[in-house]
């Protein structure tokens, strides 16, 4: 197994795992243009900034690999954050149960997505679009439309503290979630089922895979990851906001797809998603460092996304 893993990994990173070439090129350009770019603090800045999106995108990776889509992640992030914030700031629960409630709310929203898709027979797009709206509404209802605080110190520390005085905790959490995602996708039964279902659902079903049950698990996982992202966002902002994560679903899906996954399913890796999120993060960070005007930033972001992915496609084709 070890030998196989060794054989697979670099290839995966280089050819299937997403547009590494685009990322490298982007970093090189940024490094030349801005002296502040290639510094350790800036490196961790970018890491901290993409942490929330990456965690959402990792959950989204499960869904996209299995041939689905989850539009609700941004709203579920808000719901989980607000439920946690309500539990700790309003209901005054201790930290552990409050955290469990927040994460549980995320997972529950994901489970409902899964039930709508399997039992309700809804296309994933519709089911999660409905949840996009409903979860946001619930977050507003629960919070009364106002940000909830105070957030307990340990959680605030997760947002602003660091490990060994150097590595910001959001980056630590993000790397942990990334490794977890990679392990789930590569080594576990549900992970392998995701690829099979995304690659050919009918063949997966005929091979005796419990497609319905796996889908429930997949969407629940995505909801749970959104819950983790919600707690982290709350930690970073030191308040639980009903408006948090607005339009994040697009960023999350974009990170996965930029990372080489296909919306038709069966293809995608955790590393690819990491690279996709990094491309988006480095781009925004760099544009800020370069003080590009707000209007032009959007034009540049568009152009660079297209170029970054194209670099990779062209490189792969040439091979």
């Amino acid at each position, binding site marked *: *197994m070890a030998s*196989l893993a060794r054989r*697979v990994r670099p290839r995966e990173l280089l050819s299937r795992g997403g547009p590494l070439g685009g990322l490298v090129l982007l970093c090189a350009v940024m490094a030349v243009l801005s002296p502040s770019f290639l510094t350790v603090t800036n490196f961790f800045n970018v890491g901290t900034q993409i942490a929330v999106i990456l965690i959402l995108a990792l959950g989204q990776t499960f869904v996209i690999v299995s041939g689905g889509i989850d539009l609700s992640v941004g709203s579920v992030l808000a719901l989980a954050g607000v439920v946690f914030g309500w539990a700790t700031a309003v209901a005054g629960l201790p930290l552990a149960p409050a955290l469990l409630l927040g994460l549980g709310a995320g997972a529950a929203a994901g489970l409902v997505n899964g039930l709508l898709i399997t039992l309700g027979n809804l296309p994933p797009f519709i089911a999660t679009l409905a949840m996009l709206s409903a979860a946001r509404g619930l977050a507003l209802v629960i919070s009364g439309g106002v940000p909830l605080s105070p957030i307990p110190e340990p959680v605030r520390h997760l947002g602003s503290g660091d490990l060994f005085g150097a590595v910001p905790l959001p980056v630590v959490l993000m790397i942990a979630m990334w490794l977890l995602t990679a392990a789930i996708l590569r*080594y576990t*039964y549900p992970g*392998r089922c995701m690829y*099979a279902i995304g*690659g050919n659902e009918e*063949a997966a079903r005929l091979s*005796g895979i419990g497609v319905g049950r796996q889908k429930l698990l997949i969407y629940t996982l995505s909801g749970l990851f959104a819950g983790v992202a919600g707690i982290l966002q709350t930690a970073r902002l030191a308040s639980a906001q009903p408006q948090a994560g607005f339009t994040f679903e697009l960023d999350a899906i974009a990170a996965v797809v930029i990372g080489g996954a296909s919306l038709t399913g069966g293809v995608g890796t955790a590393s690819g998603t990491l690279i996709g999120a990094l491309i988006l993060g480095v781009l925004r960070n760099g544009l800020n460092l370069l003080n590009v005007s707000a209007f032009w930033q959007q034009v540049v972001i568009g152009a660079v996304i297209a170029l970054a992915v194209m670099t990779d496609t062209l490189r792969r084709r040439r091979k």
Partner: protein
Amino acid sequence: MRPLLEMRGITKRFPGVVALDGVDFELLPGEVHVLLGENGAGKSTLIKILSGAYRPDGGEILMDGRPVEIRSAAEARRLGISTIYQEFNLVPQLTVAENIHLGRQPRRFGVVDRGAMERAARELLERLGIRVDPRARVADLGVARRQMVEIAKALGLRARVLIMDEPTAALSEREVRQLFRIVRRLKEEGVGVVFISHHLEEVAEIGERVTVLRDGRLVGRVSADAGRDELVRMMVGRSIEEQFPRRRTEPGEVLLEVRGLGRRGVLRDVSLRVRAGEIVGVAGLVGAGRTELARAIFGLDPADSGEVLVEGRPLEAPGPQEARRRGVGFVTEDRQGQGIVPPLSVAENLALASLERYLRGRVLVDRGRLLRRAREIVQSLRIRTPSLEQEIRYLSGGNQQKAVIGRWMLAGSRVLIMDEPTRGVDVGAKVEIYELMNRLTEEGAGILMISSEMPEVLGMSDRVLVMSGGRITGELPAEEATQERVMGLATAGSEAAVG
């Protein structure tokens, strides 16, 4: 006579494979030129170069003695080359008529004339003796009917060169006869036909000359009446003594029992038994309901009545999961749609039904053990693949089929339902699959084999069930099963049901 078409020194490489290595080919007008070769020899690749689906890495193509470049399918069409592909190229969501006219719908003032299109399709289908409603959606058709639509689509073009990549693989006897009649008529009109088939008996019947490929290289060109043994030797590099090497074993306990299975409109009161060590063949014409029977047994479609017992115990929650757990495997006839998972590796595809058997702890897949077993299967089935990690979509059709069968071996199934198990499989591999079936039955498995290939049914079955109109119209022990008796039972009452 000047060749209609010549290919010289054609070379084509794919990542990790040289699919064609300096292959020459020629086709005369009015000739049926058969392409033979094992699975993965490069036959489909060669004809895809002709039809504009692939660009060659080297070599040249001449038509009427003039060099041509075929850059796209549209260009091939303009040159009068029409192709029936091995893997169907139909749009499932569109109607039969529209598929037949795809890319060349009759237009009036820029508006597609559906009426004209349907009339033309109906005429064409009638002329070809194909009984399919031109307004039916292709998605609703079974494999055999799709094959016929694919044939109609290619014949609708009035081509000078007609390429047929395993057109008979999905057809039963009657449709094959019909197809050959059409081919002969085209020959008389001067059309050149490239014909690919793994059915060697068809070679002498329809072909003039035979070109044999092996591992992407040209082995030789002989007359079509060279004889089966000679052709086999050229293809596989050795001779194959016995075509249907069935080794009987004493039937043991009943593994699979079907009692009075019924499903409205498709199945009526079907009962059968498969014992350990037994191969039970199911014969019938297209649309007889054989595939429906297999699906109902496996629990894919709910049955209205009856029950299925495995080793004496009924399936409690009918469905693929339960069936698999109880040791029932199902090799479907639709390899692309229901068999392989295209973007996954050969190893993953083999492992698909046995992931649960190779768990460490409750969720971790023991990939090491799984891969060792997968490698064994690849070797024992002689699946041609550059590596276990190759995406299965790049394997030749026959090798994909072997992988799907291998999947159930890896899962340790004791009862195998095989729907057209050797469809698109080369002679060598076919015998290997038969040997495999022997081995499985010797090890105590029971096999329910659905096949439209009469020689296969007669040669490999211990008992033959014949279906017609969703019913079992007769059962013949191997000794009494002859082509005539089977056909007699197969046509009994079938008109009423298929209509």
